[in-house]
C-alpha cells in the first residue's frame, strides 16, 4: 500500500468517525430470548468504504449485519437495545418502516438466492414493486454491467436466473441489489459457496462498487478481508474487540485476542 493511500485512509477515517458516517451503531445489544448475542456494539461506517467483519463462528457477525437492515425483525425472540442511525435517522424508530430501510440498505446472502424467474425479472422485480418507473432495458443493462455479468448473459436475459452458475447467480443477486440504488450493501459471507475464480470476481467487484456504495462484508477468510476492505472489525463473543484500518488490524493489532485470531490461533 502506498503512503499516500494510507494518508488518504487516515483522513477518511477521522472524517468519517465524527459526523459524516452513513451508518452508525451505538451501544447495540441484542438478545435472542434470554441469550445475549451482542453486547454494547458500536461501529461507524462512512461513505464509499469497505468494512470487513471478522471473528469466530457464532460471535454475532451475521446478527450485527442483519441489525443494519432490520432483517432480524423476523426472528420472534429477537430483542434490540441501543440505536442504529442511518444518515442521522434511528432505523429502529417505531415510526420507521423496515421496508424503507431495506430499500436503501441492500443485502447479499451467503447462498445465492435469485428468484426462480428470468434474469431480467430478477433485476426489475424490486424497482417495479416499489413503483419506480424507468426504462427497464436500461436498468437491467446498467445493473448487469456494474457486476460484470452483462457480457456473459446479455443474450439470454429471458432465461431463468437459476440456470446460471453459482458465481453468476451471486453477481446477479448483487446486480439486483444495486438496481434499487442503495447506499449500503451488506454481504454475509458472499463467497462462502463459490469457487476461487468466482470469489476473485466478486472481490474485484467489491473493489469497484466501493466507488459508489458503502459495503459491510462478513467473511471467514482473512485474505479476503485483507484484500477487499479498508477497515476491519474483529468480533468475539458478541463484542467488537477492536476495529480500525484493515492493515493495522492484521499487522499490528492492539489486542491479544485479535492477534491470535488473525494468526489463526483461535477460530
Amino acid at each position, binding site marked *: 500500500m502506498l503512503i499516500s493511500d494510507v494518508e488518504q485512509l487516515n483522513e477518511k477515517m477521522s472524517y468519517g468517525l465524527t459526523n459524516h458516517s452513513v451508518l452508525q451503531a451505538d451501544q447495540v445489544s441484542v438478545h435472542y430470548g434470554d441469550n445475549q448475542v451482542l453486547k454494547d456494539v458500536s461501529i461507524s461506517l462512512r461513505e464509499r468504504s469497505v468494512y470487513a467483519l471478522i471473528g469466530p463462528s457464532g460471535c454475532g457477525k451475521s446478527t450485527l449485519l442483519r441489525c443494519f437492515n432490520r432483517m432480524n425483525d423476523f426472528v420472534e425472540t429477537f430483542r434490540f437495545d441501543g440505536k442504529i442511525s442511518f444518515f442521522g435517522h434511528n432505523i429502529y424508530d417505531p415510526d420507521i418502516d423496515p421496508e424503507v430501510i431495506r*430499500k436503501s440498505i441492500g443485502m447479499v446472502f451467503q447462498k445465492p438466492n435469485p428468484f426462480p424467474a428470468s434474469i431480467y425479472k430478477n433485476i426489475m422485480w424490486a424497482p417495479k414493486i416499489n413503483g419506480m418507473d424507468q426504462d427497464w432495458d436500461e436498468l437491467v443493462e446498467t445493473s448487469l454491467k456494474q457486476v460484470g455479468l452483462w457480457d456473459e448473459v446479455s443474450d439470454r436475459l429471458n432465461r431463468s436466473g437459476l440456470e446460471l452458475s453459482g458465481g453468476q447467480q451471486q453477481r446477479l443477486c448483487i446486480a439486483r441489489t444495486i438496481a434499487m440504488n442503495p447506499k449500503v450493501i451488506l454481504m454475509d459471507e458472499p463467497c462462502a459457496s463459490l469457487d476461487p475464480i468466482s470469489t476473485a470476481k466478486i472481490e474485484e467487484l467489491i473493489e469497484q462498487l466501493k466507488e459508489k456504495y458503502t459495503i459491510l462484508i462478513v467473511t471467514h477468510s482473512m485474505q479476503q478481508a485483507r484484500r477487499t476492505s479498508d477497515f476491519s472489525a474483529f468480533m468475539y463473543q458478541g463484542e467488537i474487540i477492536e476495529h480500525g484500518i484493515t492493515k493495522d488490524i492484521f499487522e499490528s493489532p492492539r489486542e491479544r485476542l485479535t492477534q491470535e485470531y488473525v494468526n489463526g490461533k483461535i477460530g
Partner: protein
Amino acid sequence: MKQKFTKKNKVKIDETVLTTLLKTFAYSTIGITVGIVVILFSESSHFFAEISLSEFLGSTKWTPLLEPRHFGVIPLVYGTVLVAGGALVIAVPLGVLIAVYLSEYASVRSRKIFKPILELLAGIPSVVFGFFAITTITPILRYLDPEIQIFNALSAAIVLAVMVLPLIASISDDAIRAVPKSMRDSGYALGATKSEVVLSIVIPAALSGIISSCILAFSRAIGETMAVTLAAGATPQLTLSMKESIQTITAYIVQVSMGDTPHGTIEYQSLFAVGVVLFLIIVAVNMSAQLVVKRFQRKYV
C-alpha cells in the same frame, strides 16, 4: 469359519423372504387395478355390442330405464363436470386463501386450531355431507330463490366445495410452506412488504402445488357419489341452470346398482360403459396434474 458362513446365509435368506413378501404386496395393488380395468372394459364390450359408439358419445339423451331408450352419455358427463366445476369455482379461491392465511399470516396458535378442524372436515363421511345438503343447504337456497328445485346442481356444487376445501387448503398450505426461507428473505431484503413477498414470490413459487391441489380436488369431486346423488337428484339433462336437477355419472351408477336391474340386461351393462367413461376422465385429470407439476416445477438450489 463354517459357522460364520451359515450365519450369513441365514440373514440372506431372511432378506430374500422379506423382499419377496414386500414385492408381492406391492404388485398385488397393480394386479387389483389391472383386474378392475379388465372387468370394466370386457363387461362394457357387451354394452357396445348393442349400442353403437356414435349413439353413446353423440346422443344428447340418456334414458336407459324409460322407453324410448336413449344411451347418450353426454348429459351424465355434463352433469358431472357441471357440479365438479361449480364446486371448484367456490372451493379454489377459498381454499387458496385459507392456505395463504394458514401458512403466512396465522399465529402458531390459530394454526394449531385451524389445521385439525380442516382435517376433521376431510374425515366426515360423504353421506353426512349429502344429508347436510338436502336438510340445510337446499332449504336455504330455496328460501333465497324459490325457483330452485328440491334436487338441484347448485346445492350439490356447494356441498362438494365444502368437501374438497380441506384438500385444496392443506396441499396448497404444504406447497406454500415448502417455499424456502431464502426466497422470502431475498424479497424482504429488497424492501418488499409482506404482501408483496407473498403475492409475487411465494405464491408463484408454490404454484405447481396449488394447481395440482385443484386438479386433485376436481378428480375427487368427479368421483364423489353419495353427496351428489342426494343433493342433485337423478335427472340426466343438459341444462345451463344450476337450479335444476341433473344426474352425474356416479349418481347414475348408484341408481342402477340400487334398483333391481337384472344381470345381463342392457341397463346393467351400461353401468360398465359409464364406469369406463368415469375411469378415463379421472385418469386424464390425474395425468394432467402430473404434467402441470412437471411443467411448473421450480428447482431450488
